[in-house]
Each structure stands twice: as structure tokens, then as C-alpha cells.
């Protein structure tokens, strides 16, 4: 890996953008969270577990997770037409797959947990920010979870692997160009989501997975802190 590679915002190759995470941002919801990575801001709200409607979609053997990812029309330079597009539908499903493994859904027959994710401002990595926010919101809602899920986009710019791409980096044009590799992991290092667009050989892709593991550990700590900060134990400061 080239050590001299300079990122346009001066970050080290394994350095996250400035992150901010907070829970309780939507008081109406059973759980909610905001996750900001640089100029990408996602909020997520959880409603449930509650009875599944419509009734014919109920599953008597287990509860279900429904995710809805949406970008606000003004979250990017060129306005997005409001409503469902194929990209949003796919990311909604990807998000569900990323989170489902940590939930004890078999404890909630006939029920559903709804997760709504909205991207307020986008500067790449929106699906990862959305998953990080959703994982936090589920924990904040008190939904029993085996683990947290943390998500990061690893990128390859020409030949160098970096973490947490910005939009500017996603549009990198030199050499082999950009490769975007969003990955989500549980804290014990299991991959619950992975995608890739670009060009990379198998050996370097293995390195990218290891790099994601390191980044997800950092995000996990940030998520844990956000949850702890929200708890008022009622004790006096000593």
C-alpha cells in the first residue's frame, strides 16, 4: 500500500471522517438516532415491535423487520424526485439483511419492527450511515439484540485502499479510478452486508475486508458512547 497517498481532505487512509452520533432525535419513535459522518447525515427511527399490518403478512413463526431507506429530495445537488426508486428499494432491502442477523425476531411472532431511515444530507456513504443510525435506533428502542452492527465504505482510489469515502473521492478519476466497497459487520466480526462497484483483485479485496473490520471497531465505540450518553442513571456526580 502506498504510504505517500494524499487524500484531498488530508485524512490518513484508515481515518474516519468526523463522526457524530446521538440517540433520541425523534421523540415520537420507540427508538431513534442520528449518525453523521462528515457531510453525510442519516436519521433513523424505530417503531415496534408491534402487530404486523396488513394481517395477511403476519408470520406466526417469527417477527419481521421492515426497513425503509429514503433520501430527501434536497439531500444532493441535483434534486431527487420524491418517492420510491429502484436504488432506494434495494438499499432498504440491503439494510434489512444487514440488521436482521443481530435481532431475536423469533421472540416476536406476528409482529413487525419498522425502521425508517432518511438521509438529510449526502456526501457518499449514505447506506452505511443509515445502517449505523438504524442499529443505534434499534438499541435505543430497547429491541433485544445479540450485537451492534457497524458499517463503513472502504474505497480503492487508483491502487490505494482508504476508508470512509467522500463524494469527491467516489468520483476519483486517476489511474484505476475509484472502487466503492460498503461493508457492515457485527462487533464479533461477522459480515452481514457487503457490496462492491469498481475494479479490484481478490487479494486486495481481502485486505479491504480487514480494513473494514478496524473501521467498524471504531464506529462500534462511537455507537456505544452515544447510547451510554443518553442514559440518565439518576445518580449524583461525585
Amino acid at each position: 500500500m502506498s504510504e505517500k497517498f494524499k487524500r484531498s481532505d488530508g485524512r490518513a487512509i484508515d481515518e474516519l471522517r468526523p463522526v457524530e452520533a446521538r440517540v433520541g432525535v425523534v421523540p415520537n419513535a420507540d427508538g431513534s438516532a442520528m449518525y453523521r459522518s462528515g457531510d453525510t447525515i442519516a436519521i433513523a427511527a424505530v417503531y415496534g415491535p408491534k402487530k404486523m399490518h396488513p394481517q395477511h403478512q403476519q408470520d406466526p413463526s417469527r417477527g419481521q423487520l421492515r426497513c425503509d431507506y429514503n433520501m430527501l429530495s434536497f439531500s444532493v445537488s441535483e434534486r431527487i424526485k420524491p418517492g420510491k426508486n429502484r436504488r432506494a428499494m434495494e438499499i432498504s432491502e440491503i439494510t434489512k439483511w444487514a440488521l436482521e442477523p443481530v435481532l431475536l425476531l423469533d421472540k416476536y411472532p406476528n409482529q413487525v419492527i419498522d425502521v425508517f431511515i432518511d438521509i438529510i444530507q449526502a456526501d457518499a456513504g449514505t447506506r452505511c450511515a443509515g445502517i449505523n443510525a438504524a442499529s443505534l435506533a434499534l438499541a435505543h428502542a430497547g429491541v433485544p439484540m445479540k450485537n451492534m452492527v457497524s458499517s463503513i465504505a472502504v474505497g480503492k482510489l487508483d491502487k490505494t485502499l482508504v476508508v470512509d469515502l467522500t463524494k469527491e473521492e467516489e468520483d476519483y478519476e486517476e489511474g484505476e479510478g475509484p472502487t466503492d466497497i460498503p461493508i457492515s459487520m457485527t462487533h464479533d466480526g461477522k459480515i452481514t452486508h457487503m457490496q462492491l462497484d469498481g475494479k479490484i483483485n481478490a487479494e486486495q479485496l481481502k485486505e479491504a475486508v480487514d480494513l473494514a473490520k478496524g473501521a467498524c471497531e471504531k464506529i462500534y465505540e462511537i455507537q456505544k458512547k452515544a447510547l451510554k450518553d443518553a442514559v440518565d442513571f439518576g445518580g449524583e456526580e461525585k
Partner: protein
Amino acid sequence: MDKVMTTPEPTGERIRSYLKDGKRFDGRNLLGFRRITIDKDVSKKAEGSVRVKIGKTEVVVGVKLDVSVPYADSPNKGNLMVTAEMLPLSSQRFESGPPKFDAIELGRVTDRGIRESKFIELEKLCIKEGEKVWTVFIDVYSINDDGNLMDAATIGAIAALKIAKIPKYDEESGKVLYGELSEMDVPLSDSMPIAVSVHKVGDSLIVDPTRQEEDLSECRVTLTNHDGAISSLQKSESKELEIEEMKKIFDISEEVSRKILKEIENNLK
């Protein structure tokens, strides 16, 4: 979704225990692909079309071209649109109506594999910068679903592109003269992108599942290999994977894609 139409559990248990011993019902090994056959020109009105069979799985894929306005962020490049439909005719499981998620994902994953590998040289499909470019439509239809529509779709797409001819275009009237094909091929790079989906069934990793096997798949990772590199990847379904398992999948896809590539080249000769 519909629990009634899935592989019955006793059969499922048998399939899993066979896989543990490295065997499959049809005699293949875990990383064995069924025979691939490609028939060309299944529809004369398309600029290029093929029928692809992988065992009993069958898709038809057509390429159509039209002249349109380029996207603002790529004024000198042609456009690519890939869509997939799971026809009700091809399985009891598919219903009429707006596309379900499976069909949307099939189209999008196929699209990204072709787009990211830069197989189509889109900059050569520019007629007048910022005003007129060719749009390449690739439409995939299932005819019989016996598993692995995903890999069949990409094979069909590249084969149809390989044989497609660009129609004549009357610059003055701005009309595409369909039916009058030029001698011009769709500009393609030399190396074909090959999609390989690796499925996790029980503790086994397999490729090219039959419908019965695919029902038991808890996780699918589709990789598009191209020129010794991976140009797209999508992990589908909820089952989590160990890091080492994922790394093994990269190697499996590379190995299997080389075999498929050879078979496609033989088919297209």
C-alpha cells in the same frame, strides 16, 4: 416468502446432508456448474438476442438500441439500462404485476456487473456530445426458473451484446431505422464480465444451485469477475458470514468464472 412453494423440509435435510459429503442430487460437485447452452437470434426484431440455458433454467435476453439525450454527468457517453422480469409463465412462484424486489435486484446486479467492468465502451456510443447518444437497453426475461437466474442473466446479457448490431440512424430526420442493421457491432472490450453467485447452504458453499437448492440458500454473494479482477459484488439475504468465509468466496468466484468464460466462448464460436 410463500412457505407453501418451497423445497419441503425432508428433501432439504437430504440436500444438506448430501452437501456435507460433497455431493449433489444431480451428481455435480459443490463447485460444478450445469451445462450452459446459448442459442442466438431468438427474436429478429431485437438488435441482438439470445436464449441461455443452464441446465433446466432458461432466460431470453434482448438488446435494443435507441438514440436519446445523454445524462448530464456523462455528456459524451452512451447510456445503459438493464431490466429483468420474472415472467409468471416461467414459474408457479412468479405473479403478474409490478416487479417484485427479486426482479429489481436481478436487473440491478446484472447492470452493475456490466457497467463496472466497462465491457461496453460507452464513450464510443456518443453521436453528438451533450445532445445525442445511443442508449443500450438490455432486457432479461425468465422462461424457466430452475435456480440461478442471476448468473444466467449476465451470461445472456454479454452474449446478446456480442452479437448485437447497431441499427442505421438517419441524422437528418433523427429517426432510428429499425430493421436496417448497420455492420457496426456494439463497441465492446475484449474481456467479458462473468457473474458467479456463491450460495451458503447449511455449512457448504455451492455455485449454480437448482431451484430446490436455492430455496435452502441462506446467503448469496454474487461477484462479477472480469480480467482477473472483481468489478462488482453483492451479498444478499440475512445470513452473516465469517470474514474467512467471505475471502474464500472471492477465490471460488474467480476459479469458477474462468471455467464459465471458456464455455461461453465455445458456445459463441
